């Protein structure tokens, strides 16, 4: 699978990672090599195979839908780079 520079830029945008033109150029080769290498999975016949979801059969546990550990807003925002009154601050989004 050949990844071109435009695809690298598109994927980088989706991943929200800024890449310089030089980085994009280098990544073009690296990503192509990795995707070429995983291409060998095409040899495996998986026509009637289910994708693996867990190591052994186990039902996902459920719990009642209620707040069990509330009132910790201060702890939640404690590590944020910028906050005000227990709100996260971000650059203006709506004009």
């Amino acid at each position, binding site marked *: 699978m050949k990844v071109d520079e435009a695809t690298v830029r598109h994927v980088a945008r989706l991943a929200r*990672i800024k*890449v310089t033109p030089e980085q994009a150029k280098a990544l073009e080769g690296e990503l192509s090599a*990795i995707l070429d290498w995983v291409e060998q999975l095409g040899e495996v016949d998986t026509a009637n195979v289910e994708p693996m979801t867990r190591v052994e059969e186990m039902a996902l546990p459920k719990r009642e839908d209620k707040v069990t550990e509330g009132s910790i807003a201060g702890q939640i925002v404690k590590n944020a780079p910028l906050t005000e009154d227990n709100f996260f601050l971000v650059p203006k989004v709506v004009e």
Partner: protein
Amino acid sequence: MSELTGLTLAEARDRLKKKEITAHELTEAHITALEAANTALNAYIVPTPDKALDMAKASDERLGKGKGLPLDGLPLGIKDLYCTEGVRSTACSGILGDFQPVYESTVTQNLWAAGAVMLGKTNMDEFAMGSSNETSAYGSCVNPWRAAGSDKPLVPGGSSGGSASAVAARIALAATASDTGGSIRQPAAFTGTVGLKPTYGRCSRRGMIAFASSLDQAGPITRTVQDAAIMLRHMASYDPKDSTSANRKVPDYEKALSEKVKGLKIGVPKEYRIDGMSAEIDELWERGIGWYKDAGAEIIEISLPHTKYALPAYYIVAPAEASSNLARYDGVRYGARVNGKDIIDMYEETRSHGFGAEVKRRLLIGTYVLSAGYYDAYYIKAQKVRTLIQRDFNEAFGKVDAILTPATPSAAFGVGEKGGDPIEMYLNDIFTVTVNMAGLPGISVPAGRSGDGLPLGLQIIGKAFDEETVLKAGQVIEDAAGRYEAPEAWWLSETAPAKKAKVTSKTKAKTS
């Protein structure tokens, strides 16, 4: 090396219980040794000596009253992947900045509840993505082992390089680690230590900084198989706060070690005899087979036909899950932020500065394989291959109790030696990654030395949730190969020109 730092976890535990030593003495001996070694090894990125002494004091009080807990007073290294309350936890990534968790991971909480002492946070590859500990934002960690007659610095393996280096260098009695594709077993093999990756679900993932959620599993690095048994018992638990945690009783693994291995059926998979395998590794494996025969086990040739597809499937599944897990690092809720001209630009700048090159590469691969139109062709295809890998193991386990393989394709390599080609680095995990793909338990045990005197390991793979057999079988290797002596403490005699914890521009990213 002080006599106290040379004890095994089990010996230290027994001597504390008999009041022959105190937790304070033991902890202080480790802190002294750590301070003398860490500039050269960079095994710890956040030492916590004050916290260690406080914890040791509490242990001594309990032990003094005859109310000692199972791990009371035993000093451990904690991989930086685990959230530790009030102690910086970053998975060695710049993007987490100075993140100080407000809660403790379940695994470390279990260890502290059992009385263990924290010496500090250990170095690792950034977000556990690496096999050499060279992708850490805090600089490479160095292997305490060197080739005979050489002073070339070697990698400790990765991603749990700091934990492995610390345990091998006697600056921790044992350490926590984590394994997504081989990150416990490969560094253990490179440093002459024991590395145990339990069954997926055995230990809670709560509070472990996520890499690939369907593969990540906590486990210990220790100096003996018995110590691994002790550690696992106190790391494992059912945790309602991790929906993939297994609701099963945690057995007394130490007890299993005294069981006989006579009649045990050991499988030897022919697909692990890969092209170009070194004669040294092949001989090691043959020697291992001989040890099991001598112990009265039966050797059975088995086939795991999908082995060669495990690594390429891993490099779809793991990056895909990582791209989803690491989406949370957006410069808003925690960690570093780099400002931009608008919110999207802020995200992009933050992530571009905060992540290292290998992490970015994997995030882009992961984003690509999950992007519109490719999901079925890549991710679902890889998950189907996983089913086939699991099926291979299930069939084999119809005939055998455990499987014996080499742990790594080579001994430790030099720092900076494998930087150019990502796939060359990925191949380090060729013998370990199948185990993660199938969710099984595996252990790497020191089994011999390379021609130039470096440690080599053998791996035992077991059935799901049968860590007891894995440990019991691992003990056979240790009994036959003998425990390793400590590596020569060259860091004490050299004014080491080793790298200091390198704080990159990433960790200094503006936090406006």
